[in-house]
């Protein structure tokens, strides 16, 4: 599929900001299944300096510093992407029993497997706990293949939990999500990751976008989409397999990848530190527009 993703963030401050330093993770990463055209980035007021780099996880990060006094900050990033219908994950190879996967993670000297061990450890938003293990265990019976077990966990989260955008915030602890059985995509991804890590498996958090279809017969509303989040589990020998517990599916061409990390904290779309500003209001709008025609080779500005 081809999409144009437009992600617009606007901050209004009650008093002037004299200086701010920011980091945006709004530039979609290139992968073997996702091609990106150069993004159009519009930042107002104009930054005195902006620099792109890759972070520890390989995500694209845009640093920018604004030195003009301002009461409004607007960051808009528009990117044309093409998502292929297959992920890099090797689906042909049978997934090992999950206990064997745990053992391989602990012992296998393959550098790729060693690197994946980072995603077995606790991270700031996702701590392992026996409660998460207990929730996952019914799906992880002895000798069950890892993928099959994870798919069932994914489905159970989808069925057991209520999508409720008013229940949680970024700061809601995961055990509360588990006990109350409600949350949003970010919570469900974190929960699945916590379950997998509590079993000794490696799992990572993926931020991105998902095309939302309007109700039949109604036009598509521009800007009504939202950021999305899901996860991937590491299958030794086969790679990272993605799961979306919010939609009970394995992401394919409708899931556009932005960035990944240990949890949300590693991929927050916009962070900053400013001098002044007082209180602020935030407006975010996301638009995932399908492009029916193949993307022509017209020039985009970076």
């Amino acid at each position: 599929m081809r999409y144009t993703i437009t992600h617009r963030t606007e901050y209004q401050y009650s008093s002037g900001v004299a200086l701010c330093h920011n980091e945006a993770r709004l530039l979609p990463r290139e992968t073997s299944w996702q091609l990106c055209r150069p993004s159009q980035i519009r930042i107002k007021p104009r930054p005195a300096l902006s620099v792109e780099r890759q972070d520890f996880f390989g995500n694209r990060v845009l640093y920018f510093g604004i030195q003009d006094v301002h009461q409004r900050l607007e960051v808009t990033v528009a990117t044309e992407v093409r998502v292929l219908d297959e992920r890099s994950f090797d689906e042909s190879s049978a997934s090992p029993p999950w206990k064997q996967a745990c053992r391989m993670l602990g012992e296998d000297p393959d550098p790729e497997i060693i690197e994946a061990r980072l995603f077995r450890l606790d991270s700031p938003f996702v701590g392992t706990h026996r409660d998460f293990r207990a929730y996952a265990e019914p799906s992880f019976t002895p000798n069950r293949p890892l993928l099959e077990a994870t798919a069932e966990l994914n489905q159970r989260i989808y069925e057991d939990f209520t999508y409720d955008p008013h229940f949680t915030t970024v700061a809601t602890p995961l055990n509360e999500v588990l006990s109350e059985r409600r949350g949003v995509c970010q919570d469900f991804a974190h929960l699945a990751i916590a379950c997998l890590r509590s079993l000794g498996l490696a799992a990572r958090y993926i931020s991105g976008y998902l095309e939302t279809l309007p109700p039949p017969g109604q036009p598509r509303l521009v800007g009504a989409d939202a950021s999305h989040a899901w996860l991937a589990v590491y299958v030794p020998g086969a790679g990272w397999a993605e799961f979306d517990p919010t939609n009970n599916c394995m992401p394919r061409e409708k899931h556009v990848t932005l960035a990944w990390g240990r949890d949300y904290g590693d991929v927050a779309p916009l962070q900053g530190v400013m001098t002044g500003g007082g209180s602020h209001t935030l407006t975010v709008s996301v638009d995932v527009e399908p492009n029916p025609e193949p993307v022509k080779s017209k020039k985009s500005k970076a």
Partner: protein
Amino acid sequence: MTKAAVAYSDVLELPSETLLADYPVAAAGYDEMCSAPGKLRPHWREIAKTLEEIGGEELERRHGEVQRLLQTDGVTYNTYDDLRSSQQHWLVDPIPLLMTGEEWSDLAVGLEQRTRLMNALLADLYNQRLAIRQGWLPPELIYPHPGFLASCHQSLPTGFRGLIFHGVDLARGPDGVLRVYGDRTQSPAGAGYTLENRIILARALPMLYRDAPLRRLASFLETERTTLAGLARHHPENPHVVLLTPGPNSPVYFEHAYLANYLSLSLVEGEDLVVRDGRVWLKTLGGLQPVDVILRQVLDAFCDPLELRGDSLLGVPGLLQAVRGGHVVLANALGSGIIENPGLAAFLPLLCRQLLGEDLKLPSLPTWWCGNPDDHDYVLANLDQLVVRSILPSGPYWEGHQLDDKLRAQLIGQMRVKPYLFVAQESQPLSTAPVLEGGKLLPRPVMLRSFIVAEDDGYRVMPGGLARVSSGLDTLQAALQKGGISKDWWVLAQTPQRHVSLLRQAHGPIVATRDGSDLPSRVADNLFWLGRYSERFDGTARLLREALGRLLEWEQDNTDERCLDDLFDALEIPVPPVAESPRARFFALRQTLLSLLLESEHPGNLQAVFNGMLRTGRAVRNHLGDDSWRLLNRIQHWVQESSPGLNARQARELLEEELMLIAAFCGLNNETMPHHQGWLFFDIGRYLERVLRTLELFKLAFITARHPGVPLWEVVLTITDNLTAYRRRYRSALHPTAIIDLLLFDEGNPRSVGYQLQRLQRHVGRLQQPDSSPYRSAEERLVLEAVSTLQLADIAALAVLSHDSTHSSTELSRLLDALHTPLSGLSDALTHSHFSHAEVPQQLITMRP
């Protein structure tokens, strides 16, 4: 044969009772000085002779001298609690710890290799991560450790070393082998204390130090300076190097100020720096000045609230990006805290072969990392012989043999959940060294801290370092917070080396500067408040002294005590309710007055005011002369002498002492601080506080007094130290008109409002304005308003004043208010023009897991 005779085969006549003969060295274990009871190691012979000559009693006297010198120099070590109770004085034992030149040479080779290895590991962990990918280091040891900062990935420009400074803790086991106990890379404290120890001991014990064949330290510090300057590749001619400190509340702030002075660096805090255009700048009175190199004494995670800990107030937003851009170099690099991970010790032999192609020369304390199942099993099986530690910074530790069943089960349970967070180390008794206690030498366990600094292409090791009395389980910081004792560590040279002055000589042309526009705004702010607090202290102490004096006179001679009510008003404390008897009233009044001397609810109590002085004074430590600093320490001594048990007379004597010292402090600052921008702020602070207090005193005496009249006027003259001047001039009874002239209009009288305003006007006019506007600044206009008001005052209308004339008191009241209003706005105006950028940055979004 006596013990002494064994030790001194070459010294024939020794008294039978000697310092060394009584040294009770244990038969087991390793002692640095004696190889067996009564048997000296050869390299201790010379110093043993000297110590013997000096004798235990004299050593003890000199030891007192050392502590006194350290205290007056303000060598402190504070914990993070409140300022007053937290400062621990640095304790130094006068007996040095000796090491032969040969042993040290071997040690230095091992240390140099260790630093090279750690530097290579640091470079690898933040770039290729071969050590992890190849399986030389388990990821579970590195990633959960807060010292590993993913944000620092690829942040070090190529060609720069991450490790510039390295501190290594060492101890000797019973087998005589020196082993590494730990590494310090984030701000290896102690080099400054080492230097100060050496200087003070050499001063107090010249007979020991003058001709001692010991390696000197000065050239090591010189290397530090050269290395730091050499890091400024973009600006090699005249690099601007700053020392970034967390501030006066840091446990080792003394050392930061000391090193900054010694190495000629600007001492700055996070809020003094700002990142603009991808560069780091120092905020000064004259504008922004570029910074090339930062000697960083702030922990990694606190250095940049944008990319590291968002809740840090000590850092500089955008710093890491400036580092990536290559415009500023940090020593040590951000992320170096991972090297402090105690679990690395278990992997160093392999890492050394892989990263350097060499065998590890200097052994670490045998260490097992519990993340490895075999090691975990070993640790559980041998718990009694081991010390288990968390790998986390300042994490807890457990001595296996001391655990009862319950604690043991708890620990094992924790280790089962996350074994990779634990290491176990062999529990070895440390070697002992002689420490002076009660005129005798006693063997005490010791640890050493070595310092290593980058030099050209390699590393250089300090010949000596800091020795301290320790069990080996605590960290240096923990030990000192509990009042640990440090020792001077000598490395012996072949021949006696002259004790050269450690004062550095300039090596090239330097740019002449005057302490003016390059003064950091924060320093100006603190100097201003130091001035205000000093004057507030003086004013409060004078009022208190006067009140106590009146109280005593009343008690003895039954004089008129009613003006005490007014003095209580001036001190802003409530007058105690009417008492049953004069005796009860006396105690009630005394109690209330004493409460101002002690720590109390009252915000104006002397302790609180002095804490303000101390806090601001410490923040500008290297702008005050050494003698000023000593005076501040002496005032502190007196302030802390105050106790609830004081009687009125003792309290008054205490205040007398404090008033002399505060006068000396202010006077000395006038005499020694260059009269440039910094001093101007100090002086403006003092005179602004004084003029405000004088106006308030006036208002009290002539307008709001409960008991107006001669006794109160006399009090006002005494408090302003003008009674003598008045008597000389008028030789008559007190008359309000004459007092008003003396204290309000007489511009030749330093205690008069007129004089004070003139002085403020002169100094405010000399302040550098950030923008060179042709117009008067807000603060100039405010002073001008006050000066004009006074000069235009209708003296004739005031002259008819007497205590029963309501008309003129309205006139005076109006004048006092007209003076007070602009002056009370002056403080804010100064803050706005000169200090205003101390605004705290805030986060765009709050993310707290």
